[in-house]
């Protein structure tokens, strides 16, 4: 009888790319849950729409590129991209924001470069940056945590705001961003930056009514949620520790240097690591294997580099959060980093 021929190794580890993607998606759940707990189910609406758009645009482009559609959709990478965009944008931003962002990420950042594994930039972060620059108002309209809402928002209110920009009672999202005491809401990082720009010290800022009314605590909790998910990824060996560890360590060290130099004008390391997209970035964005460095030394260097850029932009720059910009800048350096951090081959010279 004739037997089948195949090349060695015949035995394989049973973990596929799809499984990795699914695991990453599952590990996002704690963070996403806390986000919707504090900010309402707006983010779930965003996630739903982003998933549909991501899969749809991926399928469309694969069809145009004459690639196997179903097999590529199954790898889950498009879904993950959509998800990451959805959790990055304000929960009640209008629907077209997420549509534009996701379509841009999948079509322009990923597929136009050749699809999975070929893109130079992290699709979610590139899309985030495009949205932030194009629609700054919508992208910075973070509503206060639900407990501080002057109005209680029902599911239908949020759905309506998501779809039409107005709640059922006719309030705009901008109006919703105004908290009880009539102060405009912003993210903690935003508040800090504004305070510093207006000549306050960090201590004054932390004690201000504005800051207390901000969603600082909620965002810290969301970060904890993402940290938890990230630890599961590490435990499951879906990601390796080099990048998150280097990034967080870098963030702490670099911000500490600035903080130690002038604690009045620089936010503390602790504030850094539990604000904004720090944990989401450390475990879910920076570790995107396609756009990160691949060597061990390279990954550590990449994590440190992104951390440095984040600290610089947060402390000095003009944007509220810096992870997206820092990741894109880091992505650009990846080929260079990889080239200069090749490991010593067995029996080779160091």
């Amino acid at each position, binding site marked *: 009888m004739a037997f089948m021929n195949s090349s*060695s*190794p015949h035995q394989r580890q049973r973990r596929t790319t799809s499984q990795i993607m699914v695991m990453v998606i599952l590990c996002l759940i704690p963070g996403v849950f806390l986000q919707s707990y504090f900010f309402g189910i707006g983010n779930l609406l965003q996630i739903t729409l982003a998933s549909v758009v991501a899969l749809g645009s991926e399928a469309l482009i694969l069809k145009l590129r004459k690639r196997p559609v179903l097999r590529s959709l199954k790898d889950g990478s498009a879904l993950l991209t959509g998800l990451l965009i959805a959790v990055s944008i304000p929960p009640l931003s209008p629907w077209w924001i997420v549509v534009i962002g996701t379509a841009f990420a999948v079509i322009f950042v990923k597929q136009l470069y050749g699809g999975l594994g*070929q893109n130079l930039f992290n699709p979610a972060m590139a899309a985030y940056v495009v949205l932030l620059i194009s629609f700054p108002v919508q992208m910075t309209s973070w509503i206060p945590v639900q407990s501080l809402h002057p109005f209680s928002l029902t599911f239908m209110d949020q759905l309506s705001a998501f779809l039409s920009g107005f709640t059922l009672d006719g309030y705009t999202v901008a109006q919703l961003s105004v908290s009880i005491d009539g102060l405009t809401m912003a993210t903690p990082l935003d508040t800090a930056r504004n305070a510093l720009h207006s000549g306050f010290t960090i201590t004054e800022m932390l004690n201000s009514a504005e800051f207390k009314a901000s969603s600082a605590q909620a965002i810290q909790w969301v970060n904890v949620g993402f940290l938890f998910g990230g630890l599961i990824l590490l435990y499951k060996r879906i990601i390796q520790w080099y990048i998150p560890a280097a990034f967080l360590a870098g963030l702490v060290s670099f911000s500490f240097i600035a903080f130690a130099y002038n604690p009045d004008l620089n936010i503390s390391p602790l504030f850094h690591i539990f604000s904004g997209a720090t944990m989401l970035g450390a475990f879910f964005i920076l570790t995107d294997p396609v756009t990160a460095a*691949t060597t061990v030394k390279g990954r550590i260097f990449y994590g440190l580099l992104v951390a440095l850029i984040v600290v610089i932009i947060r402390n000095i720059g003009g944007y509220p959060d810096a992870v997206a910009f820092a990741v894109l800048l880091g992505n650009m350096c990846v080929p260079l980093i990889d080239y200069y951090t090749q490991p010593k081959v*067995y029996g080779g010279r160091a």
Partner: protein
Amino acid sequence: MTTQPINLLSEEQLAQISSGKQWTFHGGVHPQENKIQSSGSAICDAGIPEFLVIGIEHKGHSPEMLVKVGDPVLKGQALTKVYGAMVVQHASSSGIVHAIEKRTDLHPSGLPVLSVVIKTDGLDRSIAYNKPDNFRDAPSVTLIETIQHAGIVGLGGAGFPSHLKLSHSDGIKLLIINAAECEPYITADDRLMQEHAQEIFQGIEVLEHILQPKLIVIAVEDNKPQAVEALQLALQKMHLTLRAELIIRTIPTLYPSGSEKQLIEIITGRQTPLGKHPTELGIVMQNVGTVFAVKEAVVDGKPLTSRIVTLTGDALRKKGNASVRIGTPIQYLLDKYQLNSETAQKLIIGGPMMGFSISHGDIPVTKTCNCILAPTVQEIPAPSAEMSCIRCGECAHACPASLLPQQLLWYSQSKDHDKLDDYNLSACIECGACAFVCPSNIPLVEYYRVAKAEINTAEQEAKKAETARIRHKNREARLEQAKIDRQAKHKQAAEKRKQQLKEKNGGEDLIAAALARAKAKKADSAAGENSEQADTPKSAAAAAVARAKAKKAALAEAASESSATGTADKPKNDAVAAAVARAKAKKAAQAQQDSQSDVAEETQLDPKKAAVAAAIARAKAKKAAQAQQDSQSDIAEETQVDPKKAAVAAAVARAKAKKAAAQQNSETAEPEEAPSDPKKAAVAAAVAKAKAKKAASANADQPDNSAVTAAREKRKEQARLHKQEKQQLANEAVKNSLDTALDKNSTAAEDRKAKIAAAVAKAKARQTAQKDQ
């Protein structure tokens, strides 16, 4: 393979090793072991198949045979002589040599190799093994030779001839016995250690005697506790006379710890430098199965005729280890171990990590076949579709050689050989760890194998081109040198001749003298004959003719008693006639010269065209000859009685000659027959001659043989033309390339050539006629 002392293991390192320190290598994977299926049952004899197929060819080299078809052979009988570094192959059972032919080899390529097919008689009679005396008294060279003659190669799977590993025994510090057996499923070494621990130690003693190491380490993975136990037990029982220290080292189970380089790193913490052998570090490694074979060869005098093969996989109803005669068809073993043909999907030779698949069972077991794995689809599913690399870096994490597999993948796909070299593709041991962990199912190792083969081919081609270039350069230089030498030689010879002549003539230069004489003479003649300014003999002849004409004219003039004006005119007339004659002679000479240079020119041009020209020339010549004959027959008519007969004879001769010529012409197309052509022509000529003679003798009273002469002349003419044609044909191949270049000019040249040829022929004919007259 010079051993540099700088790389050798130091005493401190040896002390560290013996103190129990262990190191680890980068990467590695943990595939499912699947060893219990076959490790439980004892080694049994696989039996004697009807036919044994023993491959004797290696990489295209075939050693000299010691048997021929029909010879009876006994088990252990050598089939081949020692050939280079190749080991001797032996009959693995008794029977007769059934055939010596090409059979499929147990190799991924599936190529056929020259094999000896033995039809067994089932008696398994063996030759009388001559047990050598105590090997400790024998020099190591003799033992190494014994090992080569016993046909021992590395039985771990690579099949490297063992005697080669042992022959660089200077400064060996450490002997490692590789019993790691890290490939899943395989338990051949495990069972061997459990059952033949004592023999293994005897084999180690032999190797110790050959290599004289300071330390011996037996490395066993910790998933074989029974084997370790058996070894320790045997070690206690044995009265070893080893001078070196012997350690049984249990190493953690991690694929590929059984790879030579990785095991060296585990045991010593050192890495074999890239492109070097472990002897560089003072290390020799032998597989435990090889050690057993060495014991059998050196202590018992038995050559290697069988090996232990693990038969496993869920598609086999029976599983276990068997002592299999080399050359046993795999199908025989599959039948014996009850292959379930419904669940069997593929046959893997070796383990699932590095083994290769074969497409049918009609292939013999070789010395490197340590496992036959017949997995079901559930056990080892078919490889799923390859997806895009997501650069996860798992491969780099798993690589035991610390390579960057994904970079290697890109450059393999883009065939960037320089980059592949930069990223050290050659350091890849093809263990398959990268492909094992790849979540995108990329068959990385396959890409590397292809890339390696491509690089190999490219290198060979480059080498070939380089050799050709050097050869060409050398040839040019040689030719140039030869030319210079020749010139020098000629010059020397000329000098010598000159010198000799000078000596002979008492120091006078004869040539110079002769030249001087000739000059003087010329000056004289120039002075003497003013009217004769021509320099060639032909023009001289023409001048003579002119002179004669002038004389005649003068005579005529004298006879007719011309007037004063007539006499005044006479010298003028004479001068004109002389000038005309001179011009004619010059022209003729030029024509001849042209025709001569034309021969050379013609050979460079299209032979077909030349042939046409020649044909025209021939026709002209014929015509000329005919005309001449006619004139001759005219003369004959005037003087002789029977001119008609002579004319007939001439015609017959002409026809014959023509026929002969035609024959020759038709045969020139075949170069092989060319040499026979002159012969035929000669025969034809002879025949013609004879005919002509006959014709001549028929008119006995006619002494004129002008017809015969004419025929002969014509044949000569034809033969000459034919010869020319043949020369052209011979040059044809070389000139073909020139043809295209010359094509443009050829039409113009052709016309001219034909004309010239015709002129030549005409001139020749005229000459002949003149001669005849």
